[in-house]
């Protein structure tokens, strides 16, 4: 006979304030088969867990229902406690009376009634639970890192350094990401490329890292410990094994005026190009959309000059499959581009600032390129329109950020700091120049961050004006910036030579598509969701897939690096095991009733249904039935709902469990 114990947690006041826990415990003991019930202030604490263990022994419980927080929170804790007391952990179920009850309702009477209902439903359900044991599956001790920016590089180096193989996939022709475009970094003013490029080279040369640049992840199958990944290596039109990176093809290419992605459109590049001098790998790529040969069939200049015969116009995209055990997603961000015509633009635009209309109204990354020694002006601050030194520069913060009416609700986090840096860099290079910053609040939380902003204001005399800019327009070669100083309450008008917009950080345009390929959740902005914002910040809810850097939310470099190392350590924790223990929530076939219609096979997304021949004693084939490969089954239960003869059930969520849960409504 089932002997069920019910344990009601107060969670301090979190549950106790709106749910009358002692009453709930008294009601619970009246339920059939419940032989013991008690309420306690903190069930998850040591004394609380001990109460469960003791009750299991004293009252010979063979099932435990804990009414507490969400199973996503403490199911494991309580199942472990049960296991320690000798009870099969799958004989423990949680009734969620916190997230789904006490926290969302105010009325004590209603919440208490609901808590009793939830417990009754769980008690009825648990009567059909049976002991289960974990499924063991092997782990492929190799990681895939998607994105070769600073986060991806860091994660790859950490995993490789621990002695495991890493596949690093980058969609651009070179690794380096946005950090390679930056001039200096806050708050130390380290030269960005100086600190990044050695790490790029280290990743390239590391014996444990296999680098795929100009490549994208096309498909991901499998599950934690056992992913099968398809990588699309896009046609570079250059044979990587032959190219020496001499650069002659780049020099001789007659196309000179393709806008450089690396320089954010402020400079041009040829059709065959290396994104920047320190690119890794230093192998050019042909941009087929601008190359004369691909447009007209003539030219072939690069092929003619290449001494190694490395140019291959016929090259096609190559599909490569790799087996990996863990995936780290580090795909980074994009800057929100003000583009009224774009269909993709999530925001209504800031046309009043004249971005795209005036050449000297630029965004933060464009300013980085202007300030960078490797940029189009070799680090001299010259405005794009006439290459003259601007004597008055206005920086506008929060363009798209913290603006629910026109942009995004969230704060892009890094702009306060990089704007202070930009203003400072400008002042360091143009001593007699004036820098103005329009801001909403200065958000400079971080080690040395506020000091950095103070330095910009106090030592470099950057003028900070608290207020928004209403519009920017051109007048006699100047840009008139009209705004308001909300501290003194007066309108402000500045005649600027250049305007720099701190546009919002947004998710990569393909972020949602990749999330769907990986099966990880994302928020409405396209940023990837972590399992728990505080305690599991680098894990996605899909086992074995971890997050690093700005693909999760706007992040600065130190945070991205820290996240990357954290994600790498999560992968290493996985690789520290020989076998992976998986929850035994898988489908099971009743071979007696299965008629072999294989509807289950048709709906299975994991190809987990196999054919099994049933033979009689003489070896004659009796029938063919479905059989579940428990290594592949992920436990969605679609087969269970589909089976016309109810011959396949999802263990842990079988029909009886659900029906009796419904019955107890």
């Amino acid at each position, binding site marked *: 006979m089932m002997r069920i114990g019910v344990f009601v947690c107060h969670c301090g006041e979190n549950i106790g304030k709106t749910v009358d826990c002692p009453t709930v415990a008294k009601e619970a003991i009246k339920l059939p088969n419940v032989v013991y019930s008690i309420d306690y202030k903190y069930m998850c604490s040591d004394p609380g867990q001990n109460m469960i263990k003791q009750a299991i022994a004293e009252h010979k419980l063979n099932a435990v229902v804990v009414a507490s927080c*969400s*199973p*996503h929170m403490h199911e494991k804790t309580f199942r472990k406690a049960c296991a320690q007391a000798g009870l099969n952990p799958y004989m423990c179920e949680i009734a*969620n009376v*916190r*997230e*789904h*009850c006490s*926290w*969302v*309702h*105010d*009325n004590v009477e*209603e*919440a208490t*009634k*609901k808590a009793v*209902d*939830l417990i009754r*439903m769980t008690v009825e359900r648990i009567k059909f639970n049976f002991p289960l044991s974990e499924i063991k599956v092997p782990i492929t001790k190799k990681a895939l890192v998607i994105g070769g920016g600073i986060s991806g590089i860091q994660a790859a180096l950490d995993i490789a350094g621990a002695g495991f193989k890493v596949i690093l996939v980058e969609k651009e022709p070179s690794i380096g990401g946005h950090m390679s475009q930056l001039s200096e970094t806050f708050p130390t003013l380290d030269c960005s490329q100086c600190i990044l490029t050695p790490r790029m080279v280290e990743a390239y040369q590391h014996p444990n890292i296999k680098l795929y640049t100009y490549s994208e992840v096309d498909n991901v199958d499998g599950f934690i410990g056992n992913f099968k990944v398809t990588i699309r290596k896009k046609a570079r039109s250059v044979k990587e094994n032959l190219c020496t990176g001499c650069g002659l093809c780049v020099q001789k290419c007659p196309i000179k005026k393709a806008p450089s992605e690396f320089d954010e459109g402020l400079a041009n590049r040829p059709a065959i190009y290396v994104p920047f001098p320190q690119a890794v790998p230093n192998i050019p790529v042909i941009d087929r959309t601008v190359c004369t040969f691909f447009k007209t069939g003539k030219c072939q200049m690069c092929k003619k000059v290449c001494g190694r015969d490395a140019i291959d116009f016929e090259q096609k995209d190559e599909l490569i499959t790799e087996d990996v055990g863990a995936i780290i997603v580090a795909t980074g961000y994009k800057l929100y581009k003000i583009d009224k015509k774009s269909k993709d633009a999530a925001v209504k635009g800031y046309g009043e600032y004249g971005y795209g209309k005036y050449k000297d109204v630029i965004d933060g990354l464009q300013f980085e390129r202007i300030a960078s020694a490797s940029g189009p002006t070799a680090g001299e601050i010259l405005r794009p329109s006439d290459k003259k030194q601007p004597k008055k520069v206005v920086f506008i913060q929060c363009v798209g950020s913290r603006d629910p009416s026109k942009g995004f609700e969230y704060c892009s986090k890094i702009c306060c700091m990089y704007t202070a840096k930009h203003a400072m860099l400008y002042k360091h290079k143009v001593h007699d120049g004036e820098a103005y910053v329009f801001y909403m609040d200065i958000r400079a939380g971080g080690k040395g961050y506020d000091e950095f902003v103070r330095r910009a204001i106090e030592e470099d005399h950057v003028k900070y004006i608290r207020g928004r800019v209403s519009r920017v327009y051109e007048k006699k070669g100047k840009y008139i910036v009209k705004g308001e100083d909300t501290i003194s309450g007066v309108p402000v008008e500045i005649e600027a030579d250049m305007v720099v917009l701190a546009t919002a950080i947004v998710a990569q345009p393909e972020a*949602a598509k990749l*999330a*769907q390929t990986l*099966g990880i*959740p*994302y*928020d*409405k902005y396209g940023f990837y*969701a972590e399992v728990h914002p505080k305690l599991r910040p680098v894990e996605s*809810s*899909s086992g074995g897939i971890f997050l690093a850097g700005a693909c999760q939310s706007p992040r600065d470099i130190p945070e991205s690096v820290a996240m990357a190392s954290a994600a790498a350590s999560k992968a290493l924790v996985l690789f520290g095991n020989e076998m992976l223990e998986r929850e035994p*929530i898988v489908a099971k076939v009743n071979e007696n009733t299965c008629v072999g219609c294989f509807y289950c096979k048709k*709906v299975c*997304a*994991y190809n987990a249904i196999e054919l099994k021949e049933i033979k009689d004693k003489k070896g004659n084939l009796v029938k063919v039935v479905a059989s579940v490969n428990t290594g592949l089954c*992920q*436990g*969605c*239960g*679609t087969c*269970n*709902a*589909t089976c016309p003869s*109810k011959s396949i059930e*999802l263990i842990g*969520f079988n*029909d*009886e469990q*659900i*029906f*009796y*849960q*419904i*019955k*107890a*409504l």
Partner: protein
Amino acid sequence: MSDSSFEPKIVAFVCNWCTYTGADLAGTSRMKYQSNVRMIRLPCTGRIDPMFIIKAFESGADGVLVSGCHPGDCHYTAGNYHARRRWILFRQLLKFVGIDESRVFFSWVSASEGKKWVDVINEVTDTVRSKGPFTNYQKLNKEFTING
């Protein structure tokens, strides 16, 4: 039908990865909604057998909500598509079995949509409350059986 003291029973069949987590988020964020809903957690909406919905009405539910991951976002790749197709067919059977189609609700609530969950629950509860109790099965339901 509407009775001012009537409080409907709502059953929500939700997937573990999106809607259940979204409802958790509503709780963590201390958002408030009406207490009529009783949630049944399943791994995926693909697991939802139409019989669950009928049994819920048989057990005294006045309204049923099915909610899972948005199309394309299913944790199990395609379970929610199966659920959607099943629902399209099942809807046509509802009238036949004596259930008012407008008592069954379908929505997509992601793990980050705590607010949406609150809105969905309040809307479903209000709608069902205004419809009054579901009485068609009361005479029928002498004994509960689990055999479909």
